[in-house]
Protein backbone atom coordinates (compact mmCIF):
# COMPACT_ATOMS: atom_id res chain seq x y z
CA UNK A 1 0.00 0.00 0.00
CA UNK A 2 1.37 3.43 -0.89
CA UNK A 3 2.05 5.85 1.95
CA UNK A 4 -0.82 8.15 2.87
CA UNK A 5 -1.04 11.62 1.38
CA UNK A 6 -2.37 13.09 4.63
CA UNK A 7 -1.47 11.68 8.00
CA UNK A 8 -2.29 12.72 11.56
CA UNK A 9 -0.43 10.67 14.16
CA UNK A 10 -1.50 11.37 17.73
CA UNK A 11 -1.68 15.04 16.83
CA UNK A 12 -2.53 17.37 19.69
CA UNK A 13 -3.03 21.12 19.83
CA UNK A 14 -3.46 23.02 23.09
CA UNK A 15 -5.27 26.36 23.07
CA UNK A 16 -5.13 27.60 26.63
CA UNK A 17 -7.45 25.25 28.47
CA UNK A 18 -8.88 23.75 25.28
CA UNK A 19 -7.24 20.71 23.71
CA UNK A 20 -7.74 19.31 20.23
CA UNK A 21 -6.72 15.67 19.85
CA UNK A 22 -5.06 13.31 19.94
CA UNK A 23 -6.11 12.96 16.30
CA UNK A 24 -5.27 9.84 14.34
CA UNK A 25 -6.27 9.28 10.74
CA UNK A 26 -4.87 9.17 7.26
CA UNK A 27 -6.09 9.83 3.74
CA UNK A 28 -4.80 7.91 0.73
CA UNK A 29 -4.25 9.01 -2.85
CA UNK A 30 -7.43 9.46 -4.88
CA UNK A 31 -9.66 9.58 -1.81
CA UNK A 32 -12.21 12.26 -1.03
CA UNK A 33 -12.23 12.46 2.74
CA UNK A 34 -15.05 14.31 4.49
CA UNK A 35 -14.16 15.92 7.77
CA UNK A 36 -17.32 16.35 9.83
CA UNK A 37 -18.08 18.01 13.13
CA UNK A 38 -19.98 20.90 14.64
CA UNK A 39 -18.61 24.44 14.77
CA UNK A 40 -15.69 24.73 17.16
CA UNK A 41 -15.07 20.98 17.22
CA UNK A 42 -11.50 21.30 15.90
CA UNK A 43 -11.83 20.69 12.15
CA UNK A 44 -10.30 23.99 11.12
CA UNK A 45 -7.51 23.65 13.69
CA UNK A 46 -6.61 20.25 12.20
CA UNK A 47 -6.62 21.77 8.72
CA UNK A 48 -4.45 24.66 9.90
CA UNK A 49 -1.95 22.20 11.37
CA UNK A 50 -1.97 20.26 8.13
CA UNK A 51 -1.13 23.42 6.20
CA UNK A 52 1.63 24.49 8.56
CA UNK A 53 -0.33 27.52 9.73
CA UNK A 54 -0.47 26.21 13.30
CA UNK A 55 2.16 24.19 15.10
CA UNK A 56 1.03 20.94 16.79
CA UNK A 57 1.65 20.80 20.55
CA UNK A 58 2.23 17.05 20.29
CA UNK A 59 2.24 14.18 17.81
CA UNK A 60 2.86 14.82 14.16
CA UNK A 61 1.19 15.84 10.91
CA UNK A 62 2.43 14.86 7.48
CA UNK A 63 1.33 16.20 4.13
CA UNK A 64 2.68 14.18 1.21
CA UNK A 65 5.07 12.65 3.72
CA UNK A 66 6.54 16.03 4.68
CA UNK A 67 6.33 18.05 7.88
CA UNK A 68 4.33 21.16 6.91
CA UNK A 69 6.15 23.28 9.50
CA UNK A 70 9.82 22.41 9.06
CA UNK A 71 9.52 21.59 5.33
CA UNK A 72 6.70 23.92 4.48
CA UNK A 73 7.63 24.63 0.87
CA UNK A 74 8.10 20.95 0.02
CA UNK A 75 4.92 19.91 1.84
CA UNK A 76 2.76 22.62 0.26
CA UNK A 77 4.02 22.20 -3.29
CA UNK A 78 1.16 20.76 -5.31
CA UNK A 79 -1.39 21.47 -2.58
CA UNK A 80 -4.43 23.71 -3.01
CA UNK A 81 -6.33 25.22 -0.10
CA UNK A 82 -9.69 26.93 0.11
CA UNK A 83 -10.35 28.38 3.58
CA UNK A 84 -13.58 28.26 5.57
CA UNK A 85 -14.14 31.97 5.17
CA UNK A 86 -13.02 33.02 1.71
CA UNK A 87 -10.97 35.94 3.00
CA UNK A 88 -9.76 37.06 -0.36
CA UNK A 89 -8.22 40.46 -0.98
CA UNK A 90 -11.19 42.61 -1.92
CA UNK A 91 -9.13 45.17 -3.85
CA UNK A 92 -7.99 42.55 -6.37
CA UNK A 93 -9.85 41.01 -9.29
CA UNK A 94 -10.21 37.23 -9.59
CA UNK A 95 -7.50 37.27 -12.23
CA UNK A 96 -5.18 39.21 -9.88
CA UNK A 97 -5.90 36.80 -7.03
CA UNK A 98 -5.02 33.84 -9.20
CA UNK A 99 -1.96 35.58 -10.64
CA UNK A 100 -0.69 36.13 -7.11
CA UNK A 101 -1.40 32.50 -6.18
CA UNK A 102 0.38 31.39 -9.36
CA UNK A 103 3.40 33.55 -8.53
CA UNK A 104 3.49 32.08 -5.03
CA UNK A 105 3.43 28.57 -6.47
CA UNK A 106 5.90 29.40 -9.24
CA UNK A 107 3.47 28.35 -11.96
CA UNK A 108 4.49 28.80 -15.55
CA UNK A 109 1.94 29.87 -18.18
CA UNK A 110 -0.16 31.25 -15.38
CA UNK A 111 -2.53 33.15 -17.68
CA UNK A 112 -3.82 30.00 -19.41
CA UNK A 113 -4.10 28.22 -16.09
CA UNK A 114 -6.03 31.03 -14.41
CA UNK A 115 -8.48 31.09 -17.32
CA UNK A 116 -8.88 27.32 -17.06
CA UNK A 117 -9.78 27.32 -13.37
CA UNK A 118 -12.02 30.38 -13.67
CA UNK A 119 -13.84 28.51 -16.43
CA UNK A 120 -13.92 25.38 -14.32
CA UNK A 121 -15.66 27.08 -11.38
CA UNK A 122 -17.88 29.11 -13.68
CA UNK A 123 -16.79 32.70 -13.00
CA UNK A 124 -14.70 33.47 -16.08
CA UNK A 125 -17.04 36.30 -17.05
CA UNK A 126 -16.21 38.09 -13.77
CA UNK A 127 -12.43 37.68 -14.08
CA UNK A 128 -11.82 41.44 -14.18
CA UNK A 129 -14.40 42.48 -11.58
CA UNK A 130 -13.12 43.55 -8.17
CA UNK A 131 -13.65 40.85 -5.54
CA UNK A 132 -15.50 43.42 -3.40
CA UNK A 133 -18.19 43.54 -6.09
CA UNK A 134 -18.70 39.76 -6.32
CA UNK A 135 -21.48 37.87 -4.55
CA UNK A 136 -20.67 35.58 -1.64
CA UNK A 137 -21.14 32.52 -3.83
CA UNK A 138 -18.78 33.85 -6.48
CA UNK A 139 -16.12 34.62 -3.88
CA UNK A 140 -16.51 31.05 -2.64
CA UNK A 141 -16.03 29.76 -6.17
CA UNK A 142 -12.96 31.97 -6.53
CA UNK A 143 -11.59 30.53 -3.31
CA UNK A 144 -12.01 27.03 -4.73
CA UNK A 145 -10.52 28.20 -8.05
CA UNK A 146 -7.29 29.33 -6.41
CA UNK A 147 -7.13 25.96 -4.65
CA UNK A 148 -7.48 24.19 -8.02
CA UNK A 149 -4.83 26.32 -9.68
CA UNK A 150 -1.97 24.34 -11.19
CA UNK A 151 -3.78 20.99 -10.94
CA UNK A 152 -2.59 20.19 -7.40
CA UNK A 153 -2.11 16.64 -6.15
CA UNK A 154 -4.02 17.45 -2.98
CA UNK A 155 -6.87 19.85 -2.26
CA UNK A 156 -7.77 20.87 1.27
CA UNK A 157 -11.16 22.50 1.31
CA UNK A 158 -12.70 23.99 4.42
CA UNK A 159 -16.46 24.19 3.83
CA UNK A 160 -16.16 24.51 0.04
CA UNK A 161 -19.91 24.41 -0.62
CA UNK A 162 -20.86 27.13 1.83
CA UNK A 163 -22.79 30.01 0.29
CA UNK A 164 -23.23 28.27 -3.06
CA UNK A 165 -26.53 28.00 -4.87
CA UNK A 166 -27.69 24.49 -5.91
CA UNK A 167 -26.24 24.93 -9.40
CA UNK A 168 -22.90 25.97 -7.97
CA UNK A 169 -22.91 23.06 -5.54
CA UNK A 170 -23.66 20.59 -8.32
CA UNK A 171 -20.98 22.16 -10.50
CA UNK A 172 -18.29 21.82 -7.83
CA UNK A 173 -19.43 18.34 -6.84
CA UNK A 174 -18.79 17.15 -10.37
CA UNK A 175 -15.48 18.99 -10.51
CA UNK A 176 -14.33 17.28 -7.30
CA UNK A 177 -15.46 13.87 -8.54
CA UNK A 178 -13.55 14.13 -11.78
CA UNK A 179 -10.52 15.50 -9.91
CA UNK A 180 -10.48 12.45 -7.62
CA UNK A 181 -11.01 10.13 -10.60
CA UNK A 182 -7.82 11.55 -12.07
CA UNK A 183 -5.93 10.63 -8.89
CA UNK A 184 -6.33 13.83 -6.90
CA UNK A 185 -6.84 13.66 -3.14
CA UNK A 186 -9.32 15.86 -1.29
CA UNK A 187 -9.80 16.54 2.38
CA UNK A 188 -12.93 18.61 2.81
CA UNK A 189 -14.71 19.76 5.92
CA UNK A 190 -18.43 20.23 5.59
CA UNK A 191 -21.70 20.58 7.42
CA UNK A 192 -23.60 19.40 4.35
CA UNK A 193 -24.13 15.74 5.11
CA UNK A 194 -25.82 14.96 1.81
CA UNK A 195 -22.77 16.24 -0.08
CA UNK A 196 -20.38 14.29 2.09
CA UNK A 197 -22.44 11.13 1.79
CA UNK A 198 -22.64 11.63 -1.93
CA UNK A 199 -19.01 12.23 -2.85
CA UNK A 200 -16.74 11.21 0.03
CA UNK A 201 -15.09 7.81 0.08
CA UNK A 202 -14.10 8.21 3.71
CA UNK A 203 -15.18 10.37 6.61
CA UNK A 204 -13.92 11.48 9.98
CA UNK A 205 -16.16 12.85 12.70
CA UNK A 206 -14.64 15.19 15.24
CA UNK A 207 -16.39 16.55 18.30
CA UNK A 208 -15.01 18.56 21.24
CA UNK A 209 -11.52 18.03 19.86
CA UNK A 210 -11.82 14.24 19.75
CA UNK A 211 -12.08 12.06 16.67
CA UNK A 212 -15.27 10.05 17.25
CA UNK A 213 -15.30 8.11 14.01
CA UNK A 214 -13.04 7.32 11.07
CA UNK A 215 -14.26 5.13 8.19
CA UNK A 216 -16.81 5.15 5.38
CA UNK A 217 -20.21 6.79 5.56
CA UNK A 218 -21.86 3.38 5.42
CA UNK A 219 -19.74 2.16 8.31
CA UNK A 220 -20.61 5.19 10.36
CA UNK A 221 -24.32 4.81 9.71
CA UNK A 222 -24.12 1.14 10.55
CA UNK A 223 -21.98 1.66 13.64
CA UNK A 224 -23.94 4.57 15.03
CA UNK A 225 -27.47 3.66 14.05
CA UNK A 226 -26.95 -0.10 14.15
CA UNK A 227 -28.59 -0.42 10.71
CA UNK A 228 -28.76 1.21 7.32
CA UNK A 229 -31.93 2.12 5.50
CA UNK A 230 -33.27 1.38 2.03
CA UNK A 231 -35.96 3.56 0.54
CA UNK A 232 -38.44 1.81 -1.79
CA UNK A 233 -40.84 3.77 -3.96
CA UNK A 234 -43.45 1.46 -5.44
CA UNK A 235 -47.15 1.06 -6.24
CA UNK A 236 -49.52 -1.86 -5.61
CA UNK A 237 -47.82 -2.87 -2.37
CA UNK A 238 -49.95 -5.53 -0.70
CA UNK A 239 -49.55 -6.77 2.87
CA UNK A 240 -48.09 -10.00 1.50
CA UNK A 241 -45.43 -8.15 -0.42
CA UNK A 242 -44.46 -6.16 2.65
CA UNK A 243 -44.28 -9.38 4.64
CA UNK A 244 -42.05 -10.94 1.96
CA UNK A 245 -39.70 -7.99 2.18
CA UNK A 246 -39.65 -8.31 5.96
CA UNK A 247 -38.52 -11.94 5.61
CA UNK A 248 -35.48 -11.08 3.47
CA UNK A 249 -32.26 -11.95 5.30
CA UNK A 250 -30.69 -8.84 6.81
CA UNK A 251 -33.92 -6.83 6.98
CA UNK A 252 -34.60 -5.79 10.55
CA UNK A 253 -37.69 -3.64 10.03
CA UNK A 254 -40.12 -2.36 7.42
CA UNK A 255 -42.21 0.79 7.67
CA UNK A 256 -44.86 1.63 5.10
CA UNK A 257 -44.80 5.26 4.07
CA UNK A 258 -46.65 7.37 1.55
CA UNK A 259 -45.74 5.85 -1.81
CA UNK A 260 -43.40 3.18 -0.56
CA UNK A 261 -41.40 1.51 2.19
CA UNK A 262 -38.53 2.39 4.49
CA UNK A 263 -36.58 -0.80 5.05
CA UNK A 264 -34.13 -1.02 7.94
CA UNK A 265 -31.22 -3.29 7.14
CA UNK A 266 -28.52 -4.81 9.26
CA UNK A 267 -25.26 -3.01 8.42
CA UNK A 268 -23.53 -6.01 6.88
CA UNK A 269 -26.17 -6.83 4.24
CA UNK A 270 -26.90 -5.61 0.70
CA UNK A 271 -30.60 -6.35 0.29
CA UNK A 272 -31.60 -4.16 -2.65
CA UNK A 273 -31.40 -6.92 -5.30
CA UNK A 274 -33.60 -9.17 -3.10
CA UNK A 275 -36.14 -6.41 -2.53
CA UNK A 276 -36.29 -5.73 -6.28
CA UNK A 277 -36.80 -9.42 -7.02
CA UNK A 278 -39.59 -9.77 -4.42
CA UNK A 279 -41.43 -6.69 -5.67
CA UNK A 280 -41.19 -7.55 -9.36
CA UNK A 281 -42.24 -11.20 -8.84
CA UNK A 282 -45.25 -10.16 -6.75
CA UNK A 283 -46.54 -7.74 -9.38
CA UNK A 284 -45.84 -4.54 -7.50
CA UNK A 285 -44.68 -1.62 -9.64
CA UNK A 286 -41.19 -0.63 -8.54
CA UNK A 287 -40.49 3.05 -9.20
CA UNK A 288 -37.30 3.68 -7.28
CA UNK A 289 -34.95 1.76 -5.04
CA UNK A 290 -32.18 3.57 -3.21
CA UNK A 291 -30.48 4.23 0.07
CA UNK A 292 -32.44 5.84 2.84
CA UNK A 293 -32.51 9.59 2.88
CA UNK A 294 -30.31 11.65 5.18
CA UNK A 295 -28.91 8.59 6.91
CA UNK A 296 -25.53 10.16 7.50
CA UNK A 297 -27.22 13.19 8.98
CA UNK A 298 -29.18 10.96 11.35
CA UNK A 299 -26.02 9.09 12.32
CA UNK A 300 -24.19 12.39 12.80
CA UNK A 301 -26.84 13.71 15.16
CA UNK A 302 -26.95 10.46 17.14
CA UNK A 303 -23.15 10.26 17.33
CA UNK A 304 -22.86 13.81 18.63
CA UNK A 305 -25.63 13.21 21.16
CA UNK A 306 -23.67 10.20 22.36
CA UNK A 307 -20.70 12.51 22.90
CA UNK A 308 -18.15 9.98 21.84
CA UNK A 309 -19.50 6.75 23.36
CA UNK A 310 -18.95 5.10 20.02
CA UNK A 311 -15.43 6.41 19.52
CA UNK A 312 -13.18 4.12 17.62
Amino acid at each position, binding site marked *: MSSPVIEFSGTVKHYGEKTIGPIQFSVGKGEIFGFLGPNGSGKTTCIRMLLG*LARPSGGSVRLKGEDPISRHVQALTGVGYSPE*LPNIQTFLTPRDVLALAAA*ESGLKEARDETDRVLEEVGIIEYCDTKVSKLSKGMVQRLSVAQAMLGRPEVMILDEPMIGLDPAGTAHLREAFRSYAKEGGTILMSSHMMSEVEDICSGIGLIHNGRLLFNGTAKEMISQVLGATEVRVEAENLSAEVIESVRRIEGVVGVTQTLGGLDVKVDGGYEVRPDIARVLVSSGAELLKLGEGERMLEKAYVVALRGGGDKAD
Partner: protein
Amino acid sequence: MVAIRPTRVSAFAVYEVRRALAKKKVLAVVAFTILIDTVPYYILSTSGASLIPAELYPYLWVAGVIAPFALFIQFIAILIAAGAMSEEYEAGTAEILLAKPVSRAEFMVGKFLGGYLLVALVIAMNAALSVIAADLVFGPQAGLWTFPGVVLLEVYSTALFFTVAFMVGELVRRSSLAYILSSALVVSSQIIGTYLSIAFELTGSRFYEMMHTYLPTTVASSLPAQYEQALLPSSSGRVFQLILGPMGGAPSEVSAAIIVAAYAVAAVAISLAYFSRADVSKRIS
Protein backbone atom coordinates in the same frame (compact mmCIF):
# COMPACT_ATOMS: atom_id res chain seq x y z
CA MET B 1 16.17 25.23 4.98
CA VAL B 2 14.75 26.97 1.93
CA ALA B 3 16.63 29.87 0.44
CA ILE B 4 14.76 33.13 0.00
CA ARG B 5 13.70 33.17 -3.65
CA PRO B 6 13.70 36.65 -5.28
CA THR B 7 10.66 35.80 -7.44
CA ARG B 8 8.50 35.09 -4.39
CA VAL B 9 9.84 38.09 -2.49
CA SER B 10 9.13 40.42 -5.41
CA ALA B 11 5.61 38.98 -5.81
CA PHE B 12 4.86 39.81 -2.17
CA ALA B 13 6.54 43.23 -2.46
CA VAL B 14 4.37 44.22 -5.44
CA TYR B 15 1.33 42.84 -3.65
CA GLU B 16 2.14 44.89 -0.55
CA VAL B 17 2.43 48.11 -2.55
CA ARG B 18 -0.93 47.44 -4.19
CA ARG B 19 -2.52 46.50 -0.89
CA ALA B 20 -1.27 49.61 0.86
CA LEU B 21 -2.33 51.88 -2.01
CA ALA B 22 -5.77 50.28 -2.02
CA LYS B 23 -6.28 51.44 1.52
CA LYS B 24 -7.79 54.89 1.59
CA LYS B 25 -5.74 55.99 4.59
CA VAL B 26 -2.52 55.69 2.61
CA LEU B 27 -4.01 57.68 -0.26
CA ALA B 28 -5.16 60.30 2.25
CA VAL B 29 -1.62 60.51 3.58
CA VAL B 30 -0.25 60.98 0.07
CA ALA B 31 -2.79 63.76 -0.54
CA PHE B 32 -1.81 65.35 2.76
CA THR B 33 1.87 65.16 1.75
CA ILE B 34 1.08 67.13 -1.37
CA LEU B 35 -0.68 69.77 0.71
CA ILE B 36 2.08 69.99 3.29
CA ASP B 37 4.67 70.52 0.57
CA THR B 38 2.85 73.19 -1.37
CA VAL B 39 0.58 75.18 0.95
CA PRO B 40 3.34 76.49 3.30
CA TYR B 41 5.28 77.91 0.33
CA TYR B 42 2.15 79.56 -0.98
CA ILE B 43 1.39 81.07 2.45
CA LEU B 44 4.97 82.27 2.82
CA SER B 45 4.86 83.89 -0.62
CA THR B 46 1.64 85.77 0.08
CA SER B 47 2.10 86.85 3.67
CA GLY B 48 5.63 86.23 4.87
CA ALA B 49 8.02 86.52 1.96
CA SER B 50 9.35 89.89 3.09
CA LEU B 51 10.32 88.42 6.48
CA ILE B 52 12.68 85.91 4.90
CA PRO B 53 16.12 87.21 3.95
CA ALA B 54 16.48 87.13 0.17
CA GLU B 55 19.80 85.22 0.36
CA LEU B 56 17.91 82.25 1.83
CA TYR B 57 15.42 82.03 -1.05
CA PRO B 58 17.55 79.56 -3.07
CA TYR B 59 17.69 77.17 -0.12
CA LEU B 60 14.08 77.13 0.92
CA TRP B 61 13.52 73.78 -0.83
CA VAL B 62 15.55 72.26 1.99
CA ALA B 63 12.93 73.40 4.50
CA GLY B 64 10.26 71.43 2.67
CA VAL B 65 12.48 68.37 2.54
CA ILE B 66 13.65 68.41 6.16
CA ALA B 67 10.76 69.90 8.17
CA PRO B 68 8.15 67.17 7.57
CA PHE B 69 10.75 64.47 8.16
CA ALA B 70 10.98 64.84 11.92
CA LEU B 71 7.39 63.78 12.54
CA PHE B 72 5.14 63.67 9.51
CA ILE B 73 7.20 61.26 7.42
CA GLN B 74 7.80 59.10 10.48
CA PHE B 75 4.05 58.78 11.02
CA ILE B 76 3.56 57.82 7.38
CA ALA B 77 6.23 55.15 7.76
CA ILE B 78 4.50 53.89 10.91
CA LEU B 79 1.10 53.91 9.22
CA ILE B 80 2.37 51.74 6.38
CA ALA B 81 4.56 49.45 8.48
CA ALA B 82 2.19 48.86 11.40
CA GLY B 83 -0.46 47.43 9.08
CA ALA B 84 1.80 45.43 6.78
CA MET B 85 1.48 42.19 8.75
CA SER B 86 -1.31 42.95 11.21
CA GLU B 87 -3.89 43.87 8.56
CA GLU B 88 -3.34 40.49 6.90
CA TYR B 89 -4.29 38.78 10.16
CA GLU B 90 -7.25 41.07 10.72
CA ALA B 91 -8.59 40.43 7.24
CA GLY B 92 -7.83 36.71 7.40
CA THR B 93 -5.79 36.92 4.19
CA ALA B 94 -2.55 35.76 5.83
CA GLU B 95 -3.89 32.20 5.88
CA ILE B 96 -4.55 31.98 2.19
CA LEU B 97 -1.21 33.60 1.33
CA LEU B 98 0.81 31.33 3.61
CA ALA B 99 -0.94 28.08 2.71
CA LYS B 100 1.21 28.03 -0.39
CA PRO B 101 4.70 26.71 -1.10
CA VAL B 102 6.37 29.87 0.17
CA SER B 103 8.48 30.29 3.26
CA ARG B 104 7.50 32.66 6.00
CA ALA B 105 10.76 34.53 5.47
CA GLU B 106 9.86 35.14 1.81
CA PHE B 107 6.45 36.43 2.83
CA MET B 108 7.79 38.72 5.53
CA VAL B 109 10.74 40.05 3.57
CA GLY B 110 8.52 40.72 0.54
CA LYS B 111 5.98 42.62 2.56
CA PHE B 112 8.68 44.53 4.39
CA LEU B 113 10.37 45.58 1.15
CA GLY B 114 7.05 46.50 -0.49
CA GLY B 115 6.07 48.72 2.42
CA TYR B 116 9.53 50.26 2.60
CA LEU B 117 9.49 50.96 -1.13
CA LEU B 118 6.21 52.80 -0.68
CA VAL B 119 7.68 54.91 2.13
CA ALA B 120 10.67 55.68 -0.09
CA LEU B 121 8.32 56.83 -2.84
CA VAL B 122 6.46 59.10 -0.42
CA ILE B 123 9.78 60.58 0.76
CA ALA B 124 10.91 61.14 -2.83
CA MET B 125 7.57 62.72 -3.69
CA ASN B 126 7.75 64.95 -0.63
CA ALA B 127 11.24 66.10 -1.58
CA ALA B 128 10.43 66.63 -5.25
CA LEU B 129 7.31 68.62 -4.44
CA SER B 130 9.32 70.82 -2.07
CA VAL B 131 11.81 71.64 -4.79
CA ILE B 132 9.08 72.37 -7.32
CA ALA B 133 7.03 74.49 -4.93
CA ALA B 134 10.09 76.45 -3.70
CA ASP B 135 11.23 77.01 -7.27
CA LEU B 136 7.84 78.26 -8.40
CA VAL B 137 7.37 80.57 -5.42
CA PHE B 138 10.89 81.77 -4.55
CA GLY B 139 12.73 81.37 -7.84
CA PRO B 140 15.58 79.08 -8.89
CA GLN B 141 16.86 76.85 -6.09
CA ALA B 142 20.51 76.16 -5.30
CA GLY B 143 22.41 73.21 -3.90
CA LEU B 144 20.18 70.75 -5.68
CA TRP B 145 23.10 68.42 -6.21
CA THR B 146 22.53 67.37 -2.59
CA PHE B 147 18.98 66.31 -3.43
CA PRO B 148 19.66 62.61 -4.13
CA GLY B 149 21.84 62.33 -1.05
CA VAL B 150 19.31 63.84 1.32
CA VAL B 151 16.50 61.70 -0.09
CA LEU B 152 18.58 58.55 0.32
CA LEU B 153 19.47 59.51 3.87
CA GLU B 154 15.84 60.18 4.70
CA VAL B 155 14.89 56.80 3.28
CA TYR B 156 17.65 55.18 5.30
CA SER B 157 16.76 57.03 8.53
CA THR B 158 13.09 56.12 8.19
CA ALA B 159 14.13 52.48 8.62
CA LEU B 160 14.28 53.09 12.36
CA PHE B 161 10.58 53.76 12.98
CA PHE B 162 9.47 51.70 9.99
CA THR B 163 11.08 48.55 11.34
CA VAL B 164 9.93 49.21 14.89
CA ALA B 165 6.32 49.69 13.71
CA PHE B 166 6.60 46.60 11.50
CA MET B 167 7.81 44.60 14.49
CA VAL B 168 5.06 45.93 16.77
CA GLY B 169 2.48 45.09 14.08
CA GLU B 170 3.70 41.51 13.96
CA LEU B 171 3.88 41.15 17.73
CA VAL B 172 0.46 42.59 18.61
CA ARG B 173 -1.28 41.63 15.31
CA ARG B 174 -3.70 44.52 15.61
CA SER B 175 -3.12 47.39 13.20
CA SER B 176 -4.68 50.14 15.33
CA LEU B 177 -2.85 49.06 18.46
CA ALA B 178 0.42 48.77 16.55
CA TYR B 179 -0.05 52.24 15.10
CA ILE B 180 -0.88 53.73 18.50
CA LEU B 181 2.08 52.06 20.24
CA SER B 182 4.55 53.01 17.53
CA SER B 183 3.27 56.56 17.35
CA ALA B 184 3.47 56.78 21.13
CA LEU B 185 7.14 55.90 20.85
CA VAL B 186 7.72 58.78 18.44
CA VAL B 187 5.73 61.29 20.47
CA SER B 188 7.19 60.29 23.82
CA SER B 189 10.71 60.30 22.39
CA GLN B 190 10.06 63.80 21.06
CA ILE B 191 8.69 65.00 24.41
CA ILE B 192 11.52 63.41 26.39
CA GLY B 193 13.94 65.05 23.97
CA THR B 194 12.46 68.44 24.72
CA TYR B 195 12.75 67.87 28.48
CA LEU B 196 16.34 66.67 28.10
CA SER B 197 17.23 69.76 26.07
CA ILE B 198 15.72 71.98 28.74
CA ALA B 199 17.55 70.06 31.47
CA PHE B 200 20.80 70.41 29.55
CA GLU B 201 20.27 74.15 29.06
CA LEU B 202 19.53 74.62 32.75
CA THR B 203 22.23 72.41 34.25
CA GLY B 204 24.85 72.12 31.52
CA SER B 205 25.14 68.42 32.43
CA ARG B 206 26.54 66.35 29.54
CA PHE B 207 24.48 63.41 30.74
CA TYR B 208 21.28 65.04 29.51
CA GLU B 209 22.91 65.87 26.20
CA MET B 210 24.08 62.29 25.78
CA MET B 211 20.61 60.96 26.60
CA HIS B 212 19.14 63.31 24.03
CA THR B 213 21.67 62.17 21.47
CA TYR B 214 20.53 58.57 21.49
CA LEU B 215 16.79 59.09 21.53
CA PRO B 216 15.14 57.42 18.50
CA THR B 217 13.67 60.70 17.24
CA THR B 218 17.02 62.49 17.50
CA VAL B 219 18.80 59.72 15.64
CA ALA B 220 16.14 59.36 12.95
CA SER B 221 15.90 63.06 12.15
CA SER B 222 19.51 64.13 12.58
CA LEU B 223 21.13 62.37 9.64
CA PRO B 224 19.47 64.24 6.71
CA ALA B 225 19.66 67.58 8.52
CA GLN B 226 23.35 67.17 9.32
CA TYR B 227 24.05 66.14 5.74
CA GLU B 228 22.40 69.25 4.36
CA GLN B 229 23.90 71.53 6.97
CA ALA B 230 27.41 70.35 6.14
CA LEU B 231 27.01 70.78 2.40
CA LEU B 232 25.03 73.99 2.03
CA PRO B 233 26.48 77.49 2.46
CA SER B 234 26.68 78.84 6.00
CA SER B 235 24.06 81.48 5.19
CA SER B 236 21.49 78.72 4.94
CA GLY B 237 22.12 77.70 8.52
CA ARG B 238 19.30 79.91 9.73
CA VAL B 239 16.87 77.84 7.75
CA PHE B 240 17.85 74.83 9.80
CA GLN B 241 17.74 76.77 13.04
CA LEU B 242 14.20 77.84 12.23
CA ILE B 243 13.15 74.32 11.36
CA LEU B 244 14.99 72.09 13.76
CA GLY B 245 16.39 74.39 16.40
CA PRO B 246 20.00 74.09 17.49
CA MET B 247 21.72 70.84 16.49
CA GLY B 248 23.25 70.24 19.91
CA GLY B 249 22.79 66.77 21.35
CA ALA B 250 22.72 64.99 17.98
CA PRO B 251 24.96 62.04 17.20
CA SER B 252 27.62 62.23 14.52
CA GLU B 253 26.55 61.08 11.06
CA VAL B 254 28.42 57.81 11.45
CA SER B 255 26.97 57.19 14.91
CA ALA B 256 23.47 58.03 13.68
CA ALA B 257 23.85 55.63 10.74
CA ILE B 258 25.02 52.85 13.05
CA ILE B 259 22.23 53.45 15.56
CA VAL B 260 19.57 53.42 12.81
CA ALA B 261 21.00 50.16 11.51
CA ALA B 262 21.09 48.67 15.01
CA TYR B 263 17.43 49.53 15.67
CA ALA B 264 16.41 48.20 12.25
CA VAL B 265 18.36 44.95 12.47
CA ALA B 266 17.10 44.24 15.98
CA ALA B 267 13.47 44.96 15.03
CA VAL B 268 13.63 42.82 11.88
CA ALA B 269 15.32 39.97 13.76
CA ILE B 270 12.64 40.03 16.47
CA SER B 271 9.85 40.16 13.85
CA LEU B 272 11.29 37.26 11.90
CA ALA B 273 11.96 35.16 14.99
CA TYR B 274 8.42 35.66 16.28
CA PHE B 275 6.78 35.18 12.90
CA SER B 276 8.73 31.98 12.26
CA ARG B 277 7.57 30.43 15.53
CA ALA B 278 4.05 31.73 16.06
CA ASP B 279 0.88 30.30 14.59
CA VAL B 280 -0.70 32.28 11.78
CA SER B 281 -3.58 34.08 13.47
CA LYS B 282 -7.10 33.45 12.33
CA ARG B 283 -9.22 36.34 11.11
CA ILE B 284 -9.46 38.85 13.95
CA SER B 285 -12.00 41.52 13.03
